[in-house]
């Protein structure tokens, strides 16, 4: 059936498609992350304050015009502000029906803002995908698998996949005792995926875009990774742990997928996703 639709034929979904979001059709429920707050926006942890909303981009550049998406016109674009180390996160929030395997796939590209006539291949620090999950009511844990492709760090090429299980401390937000927050996006605490070095197709000027395939599998029963694949490489995830913490009061059956981008220079970094597919075995 998938081959009847060329848009689906380039995906490898599990038994049931939970969502297939083609950003030619709109935002499809993908929204900018906002940190927790209570009473005043000033109560938000500082790292969350600069985060912004995603946009539908036709991937236009000053030298050529519109690049367009993998298919059609628009891709979902998550952009940082033009300050080194800035991050941005776009996510989609749903819940799951049954504990079982899930799999996120997307076609993506990343580029820095093309505001200099230089290769600029080290100006994007990373792009990543984070799941934010919690067991059903009465379950034990909130689980947050973090995966990123570290492109460069402080101007040094890295070109490797990383994961993060180390937690950041929780902070009380406001005064009611109902709201807490932790800055899980903190730049420290990442570990290398075993054998996770991979060079991608950046191309030769910052205005040429090549789309890449990414697949991340996770098992909600065991709360362990099942797969990490990018283009022609599949990585050993057997020893990788997700970030895990005690279950929280209002997050039962949560199944969020987050798209992360971080910059490594005082210019904007752009994380484009042409389309995204979440599937499950249930």
């Amino acid at each position, binding site marked *: 059936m998938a081959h009847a639709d060329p848009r689906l034929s380039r995906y490898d979904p599990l038994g049931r498609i939970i969502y297939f979001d083609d950003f030619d059709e709109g935002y499809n429920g993908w929204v900018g992350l906002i940190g927790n707050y209570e009473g005043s926006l000033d109560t938000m942890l500082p790292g969350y304050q600069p985060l912004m909303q995603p946009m539908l981009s036709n991937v*236009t550049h000053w030298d050529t015009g519109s690049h367009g998406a993998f298919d059609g016109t628009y891709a979902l674009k998550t952009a940082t502000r033009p300050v080194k180390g800035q991050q941005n996160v776009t996510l989609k929030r749903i819940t799951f029906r049954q504990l079982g395997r899930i799999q996120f796939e997307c076609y993506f590209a990343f580029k820095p803002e093309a505001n200099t006539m230089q290769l600029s291949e080290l100006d994007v620090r990373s792009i990543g995908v984070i799941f934010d999950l919690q067991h059903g009511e009465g379950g034990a844990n909130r689980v947050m698998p973090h995966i990123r492709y570290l492109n460069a760090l402080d101007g040094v090429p890295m070109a490797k996949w990383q994961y993060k299980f180390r937690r950041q401390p929780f902070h009380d937000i406001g005064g009611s005792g109902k709201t807490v927050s932790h800055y899980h996006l903190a730049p420290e605490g990442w570990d290398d995926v075993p054998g996770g070095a991979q060079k991608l197709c950046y191309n030769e000027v910052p205005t040429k875009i090549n789309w890449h395939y990414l697949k991340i599998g996770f098992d909600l029963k065991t709360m362990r990774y099942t797969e990490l694949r990018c283009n022609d490489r599949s990585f050993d995830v057997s020893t990788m742990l997700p970030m895990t913490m005690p279950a929280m009061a209002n997050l039962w059956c949560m199944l969020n997928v987050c798209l992360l981008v971080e910059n490594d220079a005082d210019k904007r970094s752009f994380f484009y996703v042409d389309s995204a597919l979440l599937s499950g075995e249930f």
Partner: protein
Amino acid sequence: MAIARSHTATIARNEVWSGEAVTEPYEAGWAREAIFFVRALEAVGPLAGAAAQVQISADGMHWVDEGTSFGLPDRDGAVTFGRVARFGNWLRLRCRVPDGATLRVVAALTLKE
């Protein structure tokens, strides 16, 4: 019949504007019309004459005034807005706040096909 899509993006949240301030570039080529809303969370100082200019761009980097301008809110809780259409792809606001004044704002861009 398909209904027209619409979308609101908060383009500035709890930001403090003084002197000249610009919002981050926003791509909206799919939309035919847009309204910028600016709400003052906190207005401090002499805000008479504070104004926003809508700007457009071909590439998100080089900007030109679109011609639409509107006054910025001059007291806590006040809201002002400016409407634009036929703007191409990129939009932003360039705002001028008089010396000695500051505006803490929430700004939204409401888009519709």
